[in-house]
């Protein structure tokens, strides 16, 4: 009896572990904000200090993910949608029907620019979706703020313009003209002529690396750093001229579509493609990659539209198109726009399930499609076609809530200048472009012994080279390692003097003699 009393009183003294207010079991959408799978410190084979550190880290990461998920309540806008009622189908709605049903603000975003003199138009939106750049094939370049209809400049360069792109913000743009690539100011003033980029078909700008990538008829992929002006890489694709290029926004890898139906992925530091995929039986005509870097849509001359999972390099779905698609674009919320002949077809949820009917359609009478691009952060698709440019409303295309610190459509001049400086400070190096950008900062799986062995071999090779001794030919792991190459390398190292070597030695001697001879130049003394 007394014992029980004691227990009771003792229990009063000991308070049970109350859960802190901030600790929640699960918050909606929490998974979107976690990066990778969590570590279970209890099951790890590690010392108590490391376990405690990991446990704390995991707790903090979980709390951060939950806080980010809770912060979604502060989002001001919601995504758009278009739903058909009764017997209607969303694909049958025309733009003028939509214009009657939406507010003035949105209906003003539906417009048509009739520019039938200067050829099919290529277009580009800035990263914040505020400014639009048009480039007509026959030489017309125009840049304007399409939401307020304020024209920045309009010019005619009197030669072919094959592609146009904005650089890091609306103050600079690049145009791929007949022979070279030119960089213009937003007042239309030509700032640079890039004579390294010859006969360019497509331009892409990597915003976080400040790299301008170009590919042309010669089949060279060239990267130019627009902040330092340095030509970072010139890569020979060896697959002929190329006119289909897109960037993967998640890892900044450039995807090229070639005439033999292959899609190759490139990084500036590798002279060979990172990945080579055989996608179509005929030429690849259009490609698009979704913003999360997971899915790619390709279209080819074989009238097929294929959807791929880029992470696993597998085909998800295959569709037949009535004509080869001229352009593809994927919006921020995963809508796919296909431009073929004079029509635009928009598909919804195409990456998850096989779709039987498109989401929306748009016909641009009498004008062949050239270039499509979804406007970021807006429910708008820009269509560049033969007779000009039109802007159509696609509900549910754009991300409703933007982040002011990344891309701000309501940027003032000062904010734009600050953002430029911050962007330059955070500029990533071209060496950091890789297929999986999350690997930066992670440890490799190579064991310590292997790393030490490689280090010792490197040192031995360096020492041997310094002493001009024949080094032992070791098996190289990186790069192509064919047996022929190894044989040739071995042959080089030994002291073999054959006819080739004698010939080159003779040539060298002759060259040295020529250089040693005094140059018979005309000097002022010779007049006397």
């Amino acid at each position, binding site marked *: 009896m007394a014992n029980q009393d004691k227990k009771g009183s003792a229990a009063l003294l000991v308070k049970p572990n109350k859960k802190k207010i901030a600790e929640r079991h699960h918050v909606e959408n929490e998974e979107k904000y976690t990066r990778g799978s969590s570590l279970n410190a209890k099951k790890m084979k590690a010392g108590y200090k490391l376990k405690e550190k990991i446990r704390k880290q995991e707790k903090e990461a979980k709390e951060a993910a939950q806080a980010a998920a809770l912060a979604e309540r502060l989002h001001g806008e919601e995504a758009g949608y278009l739903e058909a009622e009764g017997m209607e189908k969303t694909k049958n709605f025309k733009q003028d029907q939509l214009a009657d049903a939406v507010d003035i603000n949105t209906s003003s975003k539906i417009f048509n620019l009739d520019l039938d003199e200067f050829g099919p138009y290529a277009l580009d939106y800035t990263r914040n979706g505020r400014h639009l750049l048009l480039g007509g094939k026959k030489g017309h370049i125009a840049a304007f703020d399409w939401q307020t209809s304020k024209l920045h400049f309009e010019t005619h360069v009197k030669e072919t313009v094959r592609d146009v792109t904005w650089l890091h913000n609306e103050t600079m743009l690049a145009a791929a003209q007949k022979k070279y690539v030119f960089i213009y100011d937003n007042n239309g003033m030509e700032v640079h002529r890039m004579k390294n980029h010859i006969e360019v078909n497509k331009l892409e700008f990597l915003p976080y690396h400040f790299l301008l990538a170009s590919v042309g008829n010669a089949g060279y992929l060239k990267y130019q750093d627009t902040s330092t002006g340095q030509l970072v890489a010139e890569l020979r694709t060896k697959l002929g001229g190329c006119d289909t290029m897109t960037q993967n926004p998640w890892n900044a890898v450039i995807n090229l579509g070639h005439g033999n139906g292959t899609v190759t992925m490139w990084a500036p530091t590798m002279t060979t493609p990172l990945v080579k995929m055989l996608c179509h039986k005929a030429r690849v005509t259009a490609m698009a990659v979704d913003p999360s870097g997971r899915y790619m849509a390709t279209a080819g001359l074989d009238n097929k539209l294929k959807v791929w999972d880029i992470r696993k390099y597998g085909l998800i779905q295959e569709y037949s198109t009535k004509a080869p698609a001229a352009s593809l674009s994927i919006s921020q919320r995963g809508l796919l726009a296909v431009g073929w002949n004079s029509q635009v077809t928009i598909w919804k949820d195409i990456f998850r399930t096989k779709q039987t009917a498109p989401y929306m359609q748009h016909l641009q009478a009498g004008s062949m499609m050239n270039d499509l691009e979804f406007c970021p952060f807006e429910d708008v698709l820009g269509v560049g076609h033969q007779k000009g440019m039109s802007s159509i409303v696609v509900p549910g295309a754009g991300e409703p809530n933007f982040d002011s610190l990344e891309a701000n459509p309501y940027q003032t001049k000062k904010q734009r200048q600050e953002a430029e400086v911050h962007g330059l400070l955070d500029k990533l190096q071209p060496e950091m472009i890789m297929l999986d*950008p999350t690997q930066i900062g992670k440890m490799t799986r190579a064991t310590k012994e292997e790393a030490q062995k490689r280090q010792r071999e490197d040192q031995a090779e360096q020492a041997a080279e310094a002493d001009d001794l024949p080094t032992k030919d070791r098996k190289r792991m990186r790069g192509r390692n064919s047996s022929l190459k190894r044989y040739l390398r071995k042959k080089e190292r030994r002291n073999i003097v054959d006819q080739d070597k004698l010939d080159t030695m003779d040539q060298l001697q002759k060259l040295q003699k020529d250089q040693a001879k005094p140059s018979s130049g005309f000097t002022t003394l010779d007049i006397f």
Partner: protein
Amino acid sequence: MKIKTISRSSADYVRERSQDIHKVQRNLDPTIHPFEQGREYVRALNATKLGRMFAKPFVAGLSGHIDGVYCMTKHPHLLSSMISGSGDGEIRVWNLSEQETSWSVQAHKGMVTGVSAGVNNDQFLSCSTDKTIKIWQPSAEQGSSEPLETYLGQYSFTGLSHHRKDPLFITSGNSVELWDEQRSEPIQDFAWGADSYQTVKFNQVETNIFSSCGTDRTIVLYDLRTSKPISKMIMTLKTNAICWNPIEAYTFATANEDHNAYIFDMRNMKAARNVLKDHVSAVMDVDYSPTGQEIVTGSYDRTIRLYDAKRGHSYDVYHTKRMQRVFSVQYSMDSKFVLSGSDDGNVRIWKAHANEKLGIKDRRERTHLEYMDKLKERYGHMKEIKRIDRHRHVPVEIKRADHVKKEMLQARKNKDERRRKYDQHKQPRASERSKNIIGVSKQTSS
């Protein structure tokens, strides 16, 4: 049909007046923020480089002493004051913010070997090789250049420490003696072997415990309540100085002749808690920061090094051509500055963190600096960042000495490994933390 599109009104996104701040929208979705790791790595790299650019640790040098500065202590209650004693018997009270002497006195005829803060107001004590201990009060109305009390001893004193609350103090010399401020003779004599004692230090947390280190390479711990020594530890080389952790009651740091500083737990002295290596000559003095997390050591090799108490190597090293052998170091009580007293007679004020901005930082700056620190911590293991962060200029003699020391230690290690390889009876490797401790003995209650 049911239709809704994104339709933003600029009133929600643009500020109303030019005096307002700009409206900021945030969306933390990772798809909108690509290249997280790459951008953070670049920011960490830039932060490391800026950290090295802004690393200007030297604040000021206080000159005034004629002979070398051999002992220093913190002022009893003023944050910006410090007391130093020099080799010619002069004691100065410095005002660190004005960087000048606020009070000085020719205290002793011999070298001042110890200064310690007293109990009341701004009283402090000093002991010297001229066999006297004196209590001073700089703010006394009449005759502030005369000591309040003088105590005469039998032999020259080498160290002094005052109890935190009671009017008691301990001196070291030939033996360790306990004095009462009201008595002119020591009230107790502690001795356990040893032929002379170097330093004594009272524990500031567990105020009845104090430690002493002797020339026979021992560290002895005593308890006032039992009036007996508790335990004794013998190391391979002599300890020069001891400092008790101001936060933890049982931890103390020692500065040893074998170029290392050790951190011990009083309860288990068979092995050190931590070994702080990096000096190339005997470590003369050690001091804890008021947070108990950082340690500053001053060494005979003309440098002072700053350590994190939990890690094994220094995070920074300070040296000047003008600073000769460092005999005393103190951490300031706001844990922002470090003071060094050296052979050349100057007391130097250094920043505890070399690239820290002094002065008030507003909230945005503080947040930014905290973010940069966290980034450096997360990406600090990467080759480029590590290389830039670790790079320090050290004098060429120290670099050479360090190189030679490393070579010799490596050679010994290789020999040891080879010997172990062919040894039939596998002996466990000697732990670095217990290698230099020869023995520990506890006082049995008699």
